[in-house]
Structures are given as C-alpha cells and as structure tokens.
C-alpha cells in the first residue's frame, strides 16, 4: 500500500456483486493494481455469498472488515477499517439503496446493469474520497436531476 494514512478511517472500496459474483459496480478509494482488484472482488464475493442471513453483516477481510448487506440477489459490500463504526456503514449501505430505489423508482438488478454509469454518478454524489459526502436523499436526487438536464 502506497500510503499508510490510507489505513485509517475511510471506506477502502465499495462493491456491488450479484450472487454469481458478477460485479455490477466497483469503486476503489485506495490505489490498487488491476490484478489486485480482481482478486479482491473474487475474495469478497466468496466471503459473503454463503453466509447465513442470520449471521452478522460484518466479516473480517484481511486486515480490514467488510460490511455487507444483501438485497434480493445483490450484495452491497464496503471495506472499512476494523476500528470503524460498523452499524453506521451498514446503514450507509441502506441509505444508498434507498437513493437508488428512489432514483430508478423500484430499483432492480437490471436497472443497475443497464445504467451502471448512472450508478457511478449517484455514488459520486454520495461518497467521495472514501467518506460520506451527503446524507440527504432529497439533496442527491435533486442534484441528479440537475446533472441529467446538462446531458
């Protein structure tokens, strides 16, 4: 890892994967090589896919922690520092899903597949530099409206 400061207190990456392990969105806030990214995606999928729904939403991953939540066939995973507040990130995932749901009105996996570029746009309004940027659903949806007008 290039910089030790990155080990402190931030989201290292966010993944959206389906049950088969297909990546629907991958955003890295720490510099990783391509091969490393592929490895991470593979490992995280393996880690979360077979967990019982009655288990915790937290799994240790290397020296970090993955906070994940499953919505239908999709896994939303965030890798954070082990000292970070797990529940805050867990609800951060849910807020993101609510925003997507609002934006796509009743979001399903296909929306995210065909509009993956929009998902990246929304994520950039929600999280930046591995930190929460905006927690108001309304602010983000309005912002997306502004941006769509420009296209």
């Amino acid at each position: 890892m290039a910089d030790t400061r990155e080990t402190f207190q931030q989201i290292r990456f966010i993944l959206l994967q389906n049950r088969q392990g297909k990546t629907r969105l991958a955003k890295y806030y720490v510099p990783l090589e391509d091969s490393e990214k592929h490895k991470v995606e593979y490992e995280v999928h393996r880690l979360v896919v077979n967990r019982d729904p009655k288990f915790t939403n937290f799994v240790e991953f290397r020296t970090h922690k993955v906070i994940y939540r499953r919505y239908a066939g999709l896994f939303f995973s965030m890798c954070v520092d082990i000292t970070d507040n797990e529940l805050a990130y867990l609800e951060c995932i849910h807020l993101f899903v609510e925003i997507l749901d609002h934006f796509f009105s009743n979001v399903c996996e296909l929306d995210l597949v065909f509009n993956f570029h929009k998902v990246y746009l929304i994520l950039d309004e929600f999280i930046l530099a591995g930190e929460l940027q905006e927690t108001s659903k309304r602010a983000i949806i309005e912002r997306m409206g502004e941006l769509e007008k420009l296209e």
Partner: protein
Amino acid sequence: MALSGMRGLSVFISDIRNCHNKEQERLRVDKELGNIRTRFKNEKGLSPYEKKKYVWKTLYIYMLGYDVDFGHMETVSLISAPKYPEKQVGYIVTSCLLNENNDFLRMVINTVRNDIIGRNETYQCLALTMVGNIGGKEFSESLAPDVQKLLISSSCRPVVRKKAALCLLRLYRKNPDVVNIDGWSDRMAQLLDERDLGVLTSVMSLFVSLVSNNAEAYWNCLPKCVRILERMARNQDIPQEYTYYGIPSPWLQVKTMRALQYFPTIEDPGARRALFEVLQRILMGTDVVKNVNKNNASHAVLFEALALVMHLDAEKEMMSQCVALLGKFIAVREPNIRYLGLENMSRMLLVTDVQDIIKRHQAQIITSLKDPDISIRRRALDLLYGMCDVTNAKEIVEELLQYLNTAEFAMREELSLKAAILAEKFAPDLSWYVDVILQLIDKAGDFVSDDIWYRVVQFVTNNEDLQPYAAAKAREYLDKPALHETMVKVSAYLLGEYGHLLARRPGCSPKELFAIINDKLPTVSYESYIDVEIQQRAVEYFELSRKGAALADVLAEMPKFPERESALLKKAEDAEVDTAEQSAIKLRSQQQTSSAIVVADQPPVNGSVPASNHLTLVKMPSQNITEDSNVTYEEPPVEIPKENGAPVEVESKVENIPETNIESKVEPPAVHPASQADLLADLLGPLAIEGPPAAVEQNPVQGLETNQSPVGDLALATLEDQSNSVQPIVNVEEKFHILCSKDSGVLYEDPHIQIGLKAEWRAHHGRLVLFLGNKNTAPLLSVQALILPPSHLKTELSSVPDTIPPRAQVQIPLEVVNLRASRDVAVLDFSYTFGTSLVNVKLRLPVVLNKFLQPITLSPEEFFPQWKALNVQNLKVQEVVKGVKPLPLPEIASLFMSLHLAVAPGLDNNPNNLVACTTFFSETTRAMLCLVRIETDPQDRTQLRLTVASGDQYLTFELKEYIKEHLIDIPRVQTASPPVPVQPQLPPAAVPATYNDPGAMLAGLL
C-alpha cells in the same frame, strides 16, 4: 426498467447478458475490444457521442473482469473535452479505470486545475470529485491551495464546498504539509459552524483526519463539536431530510464523537458537562425498536458514545452503566448487536476497574465461542483472550482446546497460538502447561510452531520436578495410532532426555521406549531438513538401528557427565591409550551419539534454521577416530583470510550491521601467512603448519584499538590494563559488536588461540558455548576461564581443562539466566601460558540486552491500548536525543531489527516516525511487552525524540538507554572522531518546534 440512453451500449450489455457461458462472453468481449481499438485508432472519424459510448463500454468490460490495456489515453483526453457530456465521462471513467500512480494523470493536471479555478460550477464538481477519489501526491502539491479557497469561499454553493472539503481531505492524506496548521485551526472552527448539514458532514470527516494527526492544534474546535452533538441529541433545528428513521444524521453524530476521541481529555468543565449530558442521554435513551434500520442507526450512535465514554475514562458510575449495557448486548440474539457487544467489551478491558465485572459474563461469552457465525466466534475468542488471567486461565484455555476440535481451518492457527500464549502466561502450575501444549500439538499440530514446543522442552529441562511427569505424558501419547510429526519430535526429545526416569514403569524400559519411538520416527521428515547436522544424525540413527545386539549397550542409561570433555579431545590428548580404554571411549562416543540422535544434543534449533545460516561441518583430522563414529563438530562461523588479509565472514548472513571499512583494518604484516589462517582452516588443510607462528610483538591492531573511539568503555578499560606480550590479531571490540547482533562467530584470536562463541537464546535463558582452539603444535597450559557476571545475570560456566592439547579444540558450555534488565556486560577473564608468556585477556561477552528481546508484531488494536495504558510516569519515558548519527529512517529501522525490535509500519501515520514492539524476557519480569517510538525531525537528522514504554520502570529506563547508545553511536564506527556523548535529559524548552506534546501526538493516533 430504464435503458442506458445509449443504444449501442444497451445492445452490447444485452449481448453479454445473452451469452450462455464464459467462453461466449469472452468472444463477444474480444470482438468489442477489437472494434473499440480500431475506432480509437482513427479517432478523426469519431463523434463526441461515439467516443463517450466507447469509453463507457470500456468501463463495462473492465468491470466484468477483463484486462483493458488500451483506451486509457482516450479516456483521459475526454477530460479536456469542451462539452459537459464528454467531460463528465472522461472524469468518471478515468477515476474508475486508473489509479493515482498512472502517468496519464499527469498530463491533465493543468486541465483539472483550470476546471477547479474556472467559473463553471459543474466542471468544478467533476474535477473535485476525480481528485478526491484518485488524486495523488502531485495533485496534492499543485491543487491544494485552490481547493482550500473553494472550501472557504462564501460564494460557492454547498454542492461545491462539500466536495472541496473531501477533496482537500484526500490531498491532506497524500501530503499532510498541504494544510498549514497555523491558519487552519481558526478556519476549521469557522467551518464547524456550518449550517448546511451536507457540508458539515464532509467538513467533519476532514476534521477527524486533521485532528487525528494533531489534536493539540485544534483545541479551539472542541467546544464546537460538543455543540453540534448537543444540537443533534436534542434534535434541534435539524431539517427533516437530515434525519434517518427519525434520528438526526447518525453519521454526523458518529463522526463528531469520533473526532472527540482524538482529544486526550476534555478539560473545559463547561464542555465536559455538556458532553456528558449528551452521552448520558444516548446511553439511557436508546431503545430497541422493531425497525431494523432505525435500530441499527440508533445503536451506531450508542456504540460510538460508549467508545467516547471509555476514552474519556468517565466517572465510575457511567462506566458501570456501559458495562451493564454491553453485558445486555452480548446476550441478545440479534447477531450484529451481539458482535458489537463482544467487540466493545474487548475494548472495555483496557479501562481499569471493570475487568471483574466483565469476568462475570464469562459463561455468556463462552456461548458465543460456539456460535455458528465465525465473525462472532472471532470476537468471542478475542475477548476471552483479553480477559484471561490467573484466576480463569484454566477454564478459558480448556474451552479453547475444546473448541479446537471443531474449529474450522481459518481459525485454528489463531486459536492454537492464543491458547499457547495464555497457557504460558497464566499457568497455575507447570504440569498443566505441559498438558495444554501436548494437547495442542495433538489436536492442531500443524498450527503449533516450533517455538511452542521448544518452550515446553525448555520448561521441562529447567524444572526437575516436571521431568518424570512430562516423560510419562509423552509416553502416553506415543500409544496413539496416529501422531502429528511435532508430537513425535517432542515426545522423542522428552523421552530421550528423561525416559530413564520412567524405567521402572511397565512399557517404559529403555528398549521399549526405543522401539516405540523407532516405530514413530519414520513419520518425521528428516530429508526436508536443510540442516546438515540433522541429516547427519538421521543417517547415524539409521546405522545405529541396525546394530543388533550391541544396541543394549547403546541404550544403557546415560551416565552423568561431570565435565563436558569431548571424547575426541581425550583421544587427541593421549594417542597411546590401551585397547580397553579405547573401547570405553568408543562406547562413550556412541552413547553421546545416541543421545543426540533423536534431537541434537543442543536445545532444538532444527526445522527453522534458515538456509543461509547453516553450520559449517568439519571433520576433525584425528587419526584414530575414522572407523567407529562419524562424529561431527559444529564450528562457529569463522574467518578465512582473503588475499589482502582482511577477514571475511564465512557465514553468509550479514544481517544489518553496517559494512566494515576494510581498508582501515590493518593486519600484522609480519605474521606467517599460514598462521593467519584460523584454526578451522588449519584443520581443513592437511596439517600444513610446521611450527608455532612467531608471537607478534608490535601488533598494529593494538594501536588501532587504543586509537579507536571510546565506545564500550569497559572493553577498552580492560584492554589498556592488559600488558600482555601477545596481542590479539583481531579487532576485539569489533568482534564483540558483531556478536551482539549475531549468535556465532569469533570472540577473540591471537597467534596461539582462537576463541569462538555460539549462543542460543530462549526467553530469559541463554546457552553459550565457548570454543577454545589451540592453533599451535604445542599445548596451551594453565588455561583458566572465569566469568565476572554483572548482578543481573546468573551464569554457570562448565569447568575448563587446564591444558589444551596441540591443535585441539575444547568446548565450554556457559549457561546464562537473565534476572532483570541491565546494560551491564559480563566479562570473561581468560588466561593461559604458552612457552614463557602468560596471556591474560578480559573479554566482554555478548550477553547484551537485545539477546533477551523477541520481536513481536502488534496490530493497531493491540498496540494503541497498550501504549495508552502505559501512560504512567517512569513506565513510559521520553527523551530528546541529540547528536544522533544522521541515518535515514529505513536504516534506523534495520538497526532496530538487528536489536530485535520489530518495526511496525503503519502504526504511526507520520512518515518521519517509527514505532517498534518487542518482548523482553527476564526472571523478574517474565515476558514483558516493550513499545518504542521515535520521532525524527526531517530538517535535522542529528536529533530525534525517543519514547520507550514497558510495564517495568527499570526495563523502560535500561531499554531507552540501550537504544540511545545505538542511535548515537552505531557500533563499529571506523572514523577516528569520537562520537558525540549522550546528552542527558533535556529541558522541554529544547524540544524543536516541529514536535508537539507527546500525549497529544499519540492521542492523535488513537
């Protein structure tokens, strides 16, 4: 379902979805990549829309997991596009496809900067977002001032300012110098007054990062944080959109409480009272509700509040409230809450006075150790490990052992290690300890490292009472049908050494023991041993097993050795012994071999011996030894002279000692070339030397010695006293320093004798062997050796023969026990006569502090609580050291490593600092953790601040002084200039401005 809005992209995605298998998908992707590649090649024909479409396709393919090694240039160049849609794609895809180290990014720095300082708000946002997500050092240097301006500008909309705040955070992480603390604390305080909660959320993240590096500078912001928390706790003036299931932004609350945990304390009584009110409200007012999201959000806040209360070391009442809450949480069924209850209870262990309350929950915690969810089991294991002490060790370790039966692969290693550590640390009696380790080996042999079983062997060896018990236990295990290799080794060792104590029990006669061990030994993989010694023993053993009737003799109980005189020496001494005596010698040498078969007769060091460290095997050229036994001798690595006479280490492991300046070493020119060759070389050669070499009267080395810097006053003081006519032909001082960081080598050599040394260290025990080699064809007489031990060492030197026969080598074991920390050094007073000259030398023995250190790697969660807990006067001491050798940090790190201090990268986020951990062993302290931190000043490498912490004030002091000695004057300096003497404690006024208060600095790390 909405389609992408780009027809070509939607078609491509559909195609991919319609592929029935991976192969079809690959074909489709390859076709598309080929298409994109050709289209990008003649870019002229591409419309902006097409470019945009292809770049999105590239990202999609990349996301599917295919390598996309082209198109980066095209993507990055879109950033400079004049219109928004292409620019947007350029920015977004670039930050997904490339990482901060990519060279293409450098090309667009100017464009990015122009977008940031330009008038177009949308472009500003795009640029800030990309830099915030993937900006590296270069961006940091060229963009930080502009980003700061946007953050504090009153004319910018919140949407720009929140991005600027987080972008600045990224730049600050890449290079902390971009935020100039002087001006920023006031600005930060203003920013924390922000009314827009989106901006405030981003600013709070920036603040956490700033304050984590330097809490001291931001005291003025503390009351503001408390006010924000008050406002949220009372749900005062919080817009609906910033509440989440009725809770005022849980994220902002969490972040704010996190920021407060970086301040060492809160002194302002007003702020403190207000904060405790808020915390009390959170602790009391958080109810469990049906809605999962609301529940999670409120508990996110609650757990952060718990952490803050623990950090503030609040009044006892509040603390017991916390423990009660956690006790409730670890018993609930909801897995997340239970997990967090366990996790936070582990953190709670560091708070004084609550351990006993936590212990009451032991049974509940053990239930979680059996939970089906590995995440919960890990937390339970950590907690049990943390709360274990003498009172509950038996129970906890037994639970761990039981769990080991069912634990999955992923946990077994950690589990065995923890069980082993607890067993050793808190063993109520040693037989229980032996039981535990043997069970561990039996259940999880693969995860029991060699160190662990060596330790058992050591305990047994040093405790006579334990020996029959251990041997009997080992014997029991041998009856099991399948045994782990390690179990075979440890039982073989124990029975080999102490099997005779069982001789009267059924099934334990020497012959039976031999038979059963012999039966199991094939499972031990000797051929995998790189150590020639072990291989050799294996071959011998094999030969021995075919001896038939003679075996009974060999298996006879091992007689006690009054003195460790080698059979070989005996032969060399007297070549004309009668045949009866000869056969006795023969028998004895066989016996010696037999005891060495199972495990080499030294404390076991096999298995883990690295290839670079293998021992030189030498056959002694004794005439009448050839046929009966292949006795081999380990020689300490010695020096073979090069052509220019400069000694060269035979051993390939050079460690981290700075290279010797060969030119400045002067070898005595008058010495006969052959006599320069050491004993070993002599022995290897066919006895080429005709007679004793001339004693060297004027040895230039002597001059060198006395001229040398006054390092190690002791050695020099004694050297000056020595008025011998025979002078050493090696630099004694230097040899001593080499041996301080190595465990074998030459300690001393003159024309007549070479003294080698080999040492092994286990916890606070040391076992040294001195090799006295007579280089002459005449005997050395009146040989005397005496150890002058300092008060902190217990030493026991085996007896030294009065005479060393010609060309013979005597090995003299020396046992050392370290009683406590000290920098004093043991001295070997050694004398002999050769011809008419009496030679007497006093040699420092390399039984130095670092030999009793064992590097240990700690994770931040282990380190920081310890570091904090040691914030006690005298246990943690700090000193500004001046006159330090100006070394770059990596060199200090390797120096630390040579001192057995494990440098832990990443613990301290300041690149100019260095943190190291180690365990110190002595009889009084047992295993004690030591933490070391140095903070260097990049402007002035000759000074640094050294902090040392341990649970024992003498240890802290001695270790600090010891490290200081090494920092100030790296051993083996060749320059004639004397090193700057150690400066005593400096008044705080002398602390350079770049340093901050230690408490605050470290609190920043917490």
